[in-house]
């Protein structure tokens, strides 16, 4: 009788122990899956077109503005809404048609920086018929205005640094896919985008929010590095962040040579790894087979 009670007591303790262990494992797994799901990147591009999703607009930073604050009144400049004389109006891109100088009224500093920066320079060159059209990547891409990077109707305020960084990568990647990919492979991208660390550097932390500098000049690059690495000196800027051949401009031959060396060393390291593992695995496998054979023969 006593032994029976004792045994059932033990059984209860075991059940409790395994129950707690199972629950803890399940919690950890749920935590891992939940956390992993949270880090999915938003789609690239801003999603702006002629048709506005008012549910999303109501949640955006511009929700308090009325339509005509940005778009003018229905009869402005002697134009009528809708203009029967221009039936093809809706066929052009919404972001190319809008006059983004209107953003300046509220975003003076950002607009000033944009005008000084690389994107505005590209836009001026694009509009200048005397200059040859420059292509950033393979396909023809137009120089960006505000609306190419920011979804004016949907952009939300109060997002965390990491959330802004992750969305930013999507926006930058729509024109600079190779640079976005090489950034994600770099320590900054891994720590910031994958692991969600707010201390990591996102695109604009180095390239500037509206100035978008290419950082080709080492002294400009050094200023960017020094924001987080105060002890850095000029050669520190020689560390290749975008270490892929696609993200180095064709004109930058020394950097291309460095990236080729990084690739060569990677292939050599991979070959050493593969050969060593081939030796270890084959040796162990043969050894195991032989010992199993010996064991079986003895029985």
């Amino acid at each position: 009788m006593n032994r029976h009670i004792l045994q059932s007591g033990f059984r209860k303790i075991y059940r409790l122990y395994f129950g707690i262990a199972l629950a803890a494992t399940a919690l950890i797994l749920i935590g891992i899956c939940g956390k992993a799901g949270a880090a999915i990147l938003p789609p690239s591009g801003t999603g702006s077109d002629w048709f506005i999703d008012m549910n999303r607009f109501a949640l955006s930073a511009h929700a308090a503005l009325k339509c005509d604050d940005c778009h003018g009144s229905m009869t402005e400049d002697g134009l009528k809404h809708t203009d029967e004389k221009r039936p093809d109006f809706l066929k052009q891109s919404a972001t190319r048609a809008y006059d983004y100088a209107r953003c300046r009224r509220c975003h003076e500093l950002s607009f000033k920086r944009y005008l000084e920066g690389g994107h505005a320079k590209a836009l001026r060159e694009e509009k200048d018929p005397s200059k040859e059209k420059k292509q950033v990547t393979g396909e023809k891409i137009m120089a960006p205005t505000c609306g190419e990077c920011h979804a004016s109707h949907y952009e939300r305020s109060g997002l965390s640094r990491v959330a802004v960084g992750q969305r930013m990568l999507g926006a930058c990647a729509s024109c600079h896919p190779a640079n976005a990919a090489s950034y994600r492979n770099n320590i900054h991208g891994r720590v910031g985008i994958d692991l969600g660390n707010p201390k990591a550097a996102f695109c604009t932390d180095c390239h500037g929010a509206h100035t978008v500098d290419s950082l080709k000049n080492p002294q400009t690059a050094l200023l960017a590095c020094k924001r987080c690495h105060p002890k850095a000196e000029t050669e520190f800027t020689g560390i290749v962040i975008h270490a892929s051949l696609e993200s180095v401009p064709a004109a930058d031959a020394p950097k291309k040579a460095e990236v080729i060396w990084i690739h060569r060393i990677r292939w050599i390291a991979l070959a050493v790894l593969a050969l060593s593992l081939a030796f270890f695995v084959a040796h162990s496998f043969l050894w195991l087979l032989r010992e199993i054979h010996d064991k079986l023969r003895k029985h």
Partner: protein
Amino acid sequence: MQATSITPDAPIRFSVLHRLLHLVVMFGFTGLAVTGLSLGLSSTAPARGFMWLIGGASHAAWLHRCCAVVTYGCVVIHAFWFLYYKFGLAGAWTGPDSIVPSLKDLKDFKHHLAYFFGLEKTPPRFDKFSYMEKIEYWALFIGMNTMGITGLVLWYPECFTRYLPGFFVNLAQVLHFYEALLAIVVKFFIHIGMVHFRPEIYPADTSIFTGRSHTE
């Protein structure tokens, strides 16, 4: 528990110092492996989940560096012990008890291969350390130092770029990653598998923890 019995008066194979160093390196190396792999494979869900569990990338970096200092500390202590063994104890570099590779290792290797394919009835009689143990020892010794040097470059890039071209930091990162992959696969699969799970030894070879040898 063990296939071959260990008698209390069996010869000591590993001294207290070596057992202690092995134990510390065992935990230090595991810590380095899990935190390092979580960064190296950061785009995968398990890596992100593990990083979240231990409190983010900053904590992982701190943990990785702590484990690195402890593990490399063991290498330094071992190097000092080696010097003491040579000069204090006037120990021999060569001979049957040595970790230094010798001609006999080549013969043992050929004999062992012949045994694998059934050309020899018995495995070779190894000295105190077999050729496989010597390979692992020296691979680990070289690996620990290259990992230490490349790791230090990645830890203090500001300092090293004063003397080296910037892209050497990229090279250090590449070497650190592939060396780590090699070490992790060899230690967690080949070392544990062949030292403990071989049919001859299964379930465990306790000599690195108790110090007692069960051969001879």
